[in-house]
């Protein structure tokens, strides 16, 4: 059983991918034993009507019967009245969390608007997913060059907010070395494996980050689900670690596990 914490609905604007229509995305999830996927919307990177984006996302998830899709709405703290977006995600759509794209929304992690957003999200008990990168900066479209999010301020953002639960998506290779170790030492920060590279990369990651805070993430549909599935196989984890990464950690974070 797998819980995928890093999937997306809708389409990437620069490329069609094999699983960028919901039925095929769900087929892929089912083929590899994914019982639940936490999904954001790729529309949320570019659309300014995030109310519409999140409404569609919630509806798509609610209507899907073959697999459990858990919506994570988009919030952009630079847009007017973003607080209403946050409220709707929480109260109207009953989402367990939100997904942030600082790179695509044009703010750094030191921006006071983000601090305020994190405070409010923590007060509402929402999980915050923060996407560090969507694609390789070396080969981006020349009209859409989006640097990776500078993660250096993260540890100091999380420490003073005891209610915050932060999930970093696609954090590698940006997050590495001492910075990774510093963040690994901060409770309430989770990392997914979608962009973790190197032979046996997931096993290496588990030597640095506490195993309870590593999550299965695919970056579907931009990456095929098979990439993350095979990374687990390549790492040859024992059953305890494998199950923790594949589903138990995510279930615990979402509050759907007894563990």
């Amino acid at each position, binding site marked *: 059983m797998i819980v995928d914490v890093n999937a997306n609905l809708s389409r990437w604007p620069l490329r069609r991918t*094999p699983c960028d229509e919901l039925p095929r995305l769900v087929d892929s999830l089912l083929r590899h034993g994914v019982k639940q996927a936490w999904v954001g919307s790729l529309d949320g990177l570019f659309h300014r009507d995030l109310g519409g984006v999140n409404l569609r996302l919630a509806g798509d998830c609610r209507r899907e019967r073959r697999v459990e899709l858990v919506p994570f709405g988009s919030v952009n703290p630079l847009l007017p009245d973003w607080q209403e977006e946050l409220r709707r995600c929480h109260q109207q759509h009953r989402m367990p969390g939100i997904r942030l794209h600082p790179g695509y929304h044009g703010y750094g992690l030191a921006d006071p608007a983000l601090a305020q957003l994190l405070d409010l999200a923590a007060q509402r008990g929402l999980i915050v997913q923060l996407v560090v990168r969507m694609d390789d900066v070396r080969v981006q479209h020349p009209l859409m060059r989006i640097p990776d999010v500078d993660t250096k301020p993260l540890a100091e953002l999380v420490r003073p907010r005891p209610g915050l639960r932060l999930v970093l998506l696609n954090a590698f290779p940006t997050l590495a070395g001492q910075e990774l170790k510093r963040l690994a030492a901060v409770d309430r920060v989770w990392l997914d494996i979608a962009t973790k590279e190197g032979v046996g990369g997931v096993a290496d990651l588990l030597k640095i980050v506490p195993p309870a805070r590593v999550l299965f993430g695919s970056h579907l549909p931009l990456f095929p689900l098979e990439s993350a599935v095979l990374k687990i196989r390549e790492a040859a984890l024992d059953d305890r670690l494998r199950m923790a990464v594949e589903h138990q950690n995510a279930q615990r974070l979402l509050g759907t596990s007894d563990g």
Partner: protein
Amino acid sequence: METCLNRLTRRAMLAQTLRATTGTAAVVAAGAGGPSPGAAADAEAAWATPRGIWDAHVHLSGVPGTVEQRVDRLLDFAGRLGIERIVMHMGTSFVEDPSPEEVRRQNDEVLRAVAHAPQRVFGFVYVNPKHGQESLRELDRCVRDGPMVGVKLWIAIRCSRPELDPIVRRAAELKVPLLQHAYDRVGSNMPGESSCADVAALALRHPDASFLCAHTGNDWERGLRAIRAAGNVLAEVSGSDPTAGFVEMAVRELGAERVVFGSDAGGRSFASQLAKVLSADLPEPAKRLILRGNLQRLLRKGAHP
């Protein structure tokens, strides 16, 4: 060391390793060709990777230890995913513009790798075309008189330059493929770094040689177009993010006979790179060509010079 290593000649090695297998049928479903470590406890074991895969692009990096220890470790990881044979090139350190002495040292490390696991490791000789005579001597030492089965070119000099011509001619005489690193960066490439257009230009000058366009530019949507008209260039898919749709486009634009699996491990995981092929919406015969058949066909030429 050299004398000992050179006892394993290219022809003898290829004859040994190619004799037992025929064409693409050698890539088989898991369970038919060997153990599947951890599979019993794996809830997803129903989706099994094929066995008998050949990987055209592996380095002695990403794992610690001596050359021999690194080979063992890399082969262990590879074996977990059904990768049977790997092509190694360059040594334990990456030097952008290596001296002839450095090139020789790195090739000696690959010779050690081949000698350590001759049934699973192929070697490509690394040369720096800025040093023409030394490159030809290294080709003779490692390929003509040694066990290596191809040529690796990296980023010392753009491959469309005329300095490459004698090396390509020698490789063509020996009937071994050339694997050229190629990137198409959004800004500009590194000094000396080839683009896919450079590879195509070189290949069109040498229609009797065979080329592997390593990484297909990383910007593969651009790279595939650049090499499309050069029929003696195969797209090698290693070393980029596992973006969905890469291999499908490669097959659509070039045909399955012109696409080769490579990983760029140990900097990359075998897993993410293999996923590009295994996830592709392609018929199984096309995948078998990509995962083994095409590389095998290229290397087979060198077995009968």
